[in-house]
């Protein structure tokens, strides 16, 4: 009874929302959650016979989920998926309701849900996922999430109570440790061959100590932050051998990469249509999931060749007849990966717009700018514009990284900054736009208001 009332009300408010063109995709979920607090477990109980995949971690949730989804879309497995904007409990409920009838029945075989780290302890027991992917754990919005160790502890307590298979990043010591503290079946993915570009001024290594007595891990290779190949005197904390192991890096460019992945039985050759080491990790996580749910290799390989960037995560949009590439930055590790993949690449002349907001969804604290490796690109010769509510904080960060302040443009207003950027762009050039989350949403809206049909609405 309650279930039906909750579902009907949510569907009504969603229909109303469409009429008024409101963006609140999670609002129906919020209402349904209020009417029937147990709705989520009820919805899950009768649906998704092939299981639920949960994707969480600091960076890469959206892209990993999208890569899994893009491939499943080519297979005969039907699925539903939430979006980055609805990765809290209410958003998951809203996503299921949007795809189900008034009895709460959904025809999809599977569901892929990216879940905000803070909501893992809240929703996992209800979702009883088939698999949980943890991409990585980095310092991120400490004012909101708290310290990393406390997140890992909550994850570990949650996982212990589930039968779920864990898909973990072997190269992140904190994430890998989750596989040892729980008795769940575990699959690891990792990179054993990388000798490319690295960040020199990296201040983002958070988990280089073991939990036991604060002993330091020994790194044979450090790729970025605390990601790499490490050992420990206490073998419990050494890097586990990846089940999906990148053993040969063949090519990396600022558009794509090519590499071999070895499992216990075979070796895959993959072409990934996304740039950067961080996207290779997302791809390995997706590969582990897809392969485990039985999708065949040819289909997986084909889908990675064509997969396009997710919302704001590397997508290229047109504005005033100029190309802009949106590169979301949320935390120092993510910022450093954008620096490594794009801004450190020669010729270092593309104009750049950095938009820093400090709204709640961005994190009110902007101290993370000081942990980001701007020193690595102090000789960048392209035009740099800073914008957003904390434009001056970004300008100050650049000043102390060694940039010439007199050549910076400081324009807190996003629209004016966007115009400045397009004016300084040559027709053949792509402008790099590095926004925080709320700045990214506003920029996409500005670009859409120019009649750009590439920009899909929030619900994708």
């Amino acid at each position: 009874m309650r279930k039906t009332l909750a579902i009907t009300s949510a569907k009504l408010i969603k229909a109303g929302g469409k009429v008024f063109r409101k963006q609140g995709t999670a609002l129906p979920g919020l209402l349904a959650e209020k009417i029937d607090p147990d709705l989520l477990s009820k919805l899950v109980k009768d649906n998704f016979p092939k299981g639920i995949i949960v994707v969480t971690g600091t960076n890469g949730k959206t892209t990993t989920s999208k890569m899994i989804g893009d491939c499943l879309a080519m297979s005969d497995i039907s699925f539903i998926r939430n979006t980055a904007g609805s990765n809290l409990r209410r958003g998951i409920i809203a996503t299921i309701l949007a795809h189900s009838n008034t009895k709460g029945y959904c025809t999809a075989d599977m569901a892929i849900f990216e879940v905000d780290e803070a909501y893992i302890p809240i929703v996992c027991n209800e979702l009883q996922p088939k698999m949980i992917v943890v991409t990585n754990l980095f310092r991120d919005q400490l004012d909101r999430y708290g310290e990393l160790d406390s997140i890992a502890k909550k994850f570990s307590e949650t996982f212990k109570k589930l039968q779920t298979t864990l898909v973990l990043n072997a190269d992140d010591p904190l994430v890998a440790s989750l596989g040892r503290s729980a008795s769940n079946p575990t699959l690891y993915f990792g990179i054993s061959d990388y000798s490319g570009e690295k960040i020199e001024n990296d201040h983002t290594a958070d988990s280089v100590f073991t939990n036991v007595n604060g002993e330091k891990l020994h790194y044979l290779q450090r790729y970025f932050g605390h990601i790499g190949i490490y050992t420990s005197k206490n073998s419990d904390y050494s890097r586990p051998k990846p089940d999906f192991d990148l053993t040969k890096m063949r090519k990396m460019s600022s558009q794509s990469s090519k590499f071999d992945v070895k499992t216990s039985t075979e070796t895959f050759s993959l072409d990934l249509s996304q740039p950067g080491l961080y996207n290779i990790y997302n791809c390995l996580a997706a590969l582990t999931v897809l392969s485990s749910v039985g999708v065949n290799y040819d289909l997986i390989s084909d889908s990675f060749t064509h997969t396009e960037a997710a919302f704001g995560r590397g997508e290229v949009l047109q504005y005033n007849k100029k190309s802009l590439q949106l590169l979301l930055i949320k935390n120092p590790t993510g910022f450093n990966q954008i620096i490594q993949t794009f801004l450190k690449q020669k010729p270092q002349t593309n104009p750049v717009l950095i938009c820093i907001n400090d709204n709640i969804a961005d994190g009110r604290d902007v101290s993370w700018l000081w942990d980001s490796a701007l020193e690595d690109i102090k000789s960048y010769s392209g035009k740099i514009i800073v914008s957003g509510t904390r434009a001056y904080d970004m300008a100050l960060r650049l000043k102390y990284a060694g940039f010439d302040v007199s050549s910076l443009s400081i324009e807190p207003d996003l629209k004016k900054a966007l115009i400045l950027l397009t004016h300084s762009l040559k027709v053949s050039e792509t402008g790099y736009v590095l926004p925080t989350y709320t700045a990214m949403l506003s920029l996409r809206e500005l670009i859409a208001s120019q009649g750009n049909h590439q920009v899909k609405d929030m619900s994708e």
Partner: protein
Amino acid sequence: MKPIKILHLYPDRMNIYGDFGNIIALTKRMEWRNISFEYHTSSVGDKLQSDYDLIFMGGGQDKGQVAVAKDLQSKSSVLHDHQMRDVPILTICGAYQLFGKYFITVEDEEIPGIGLFNVVTKATEYRMIGNIVISSDIFGEMVGFENHSGETELLSGATPLGKVIKGYGNTKTSDYEGVIEKNAIGTYFHGSFLPKNPSVADYLIEKAIQLQAPNYTLDSLDDWLESESSNISKER
């Protein structure tokens, strides 16, 4: 003049919330004035020298702090000697707490500090998070971001760093933030503290140079961008 010898304590374990920006601010402001410096670090198990001119230690995650608290005891007397010689010292958050007399955890366990500051800290379940503005006679207005659950009480004779204009400060209800004893400063300001508060950065640099040249005064720098970003922080 000999190069200014900077000591950064536990940079590998106490480096959260952009605290490294304080080292960037100190060294850049010396570089811009052609003041030469050496950058030294010391972590768990490392020995200290006896002749640093400027000491910095940042905040850390709780896990990082346990090993540090233990190791800090072995460095206590050398650090006290530095304070007695008027060496400028800046400690942020967790470091501020460990430089006090003791820290009482939520489980009511007492972690001894090194007592450089006459303060004591008690962990609470409440997190004091947000933009903060304080003011003092020496430094004028200071801005930053605080994020702590420990409440620090100043014992008799301890002087606060500043009076709270906006935000929490040492405790939920305190009117004051931080502590200053001789040239040693303890504060909850993250964010980073020194880039947006150049008066404090320059105070530390000047005091460090005065150890060699007592009458030395620093040249001023063009700080319009520092002031502008501080003003914006005050409104957020």
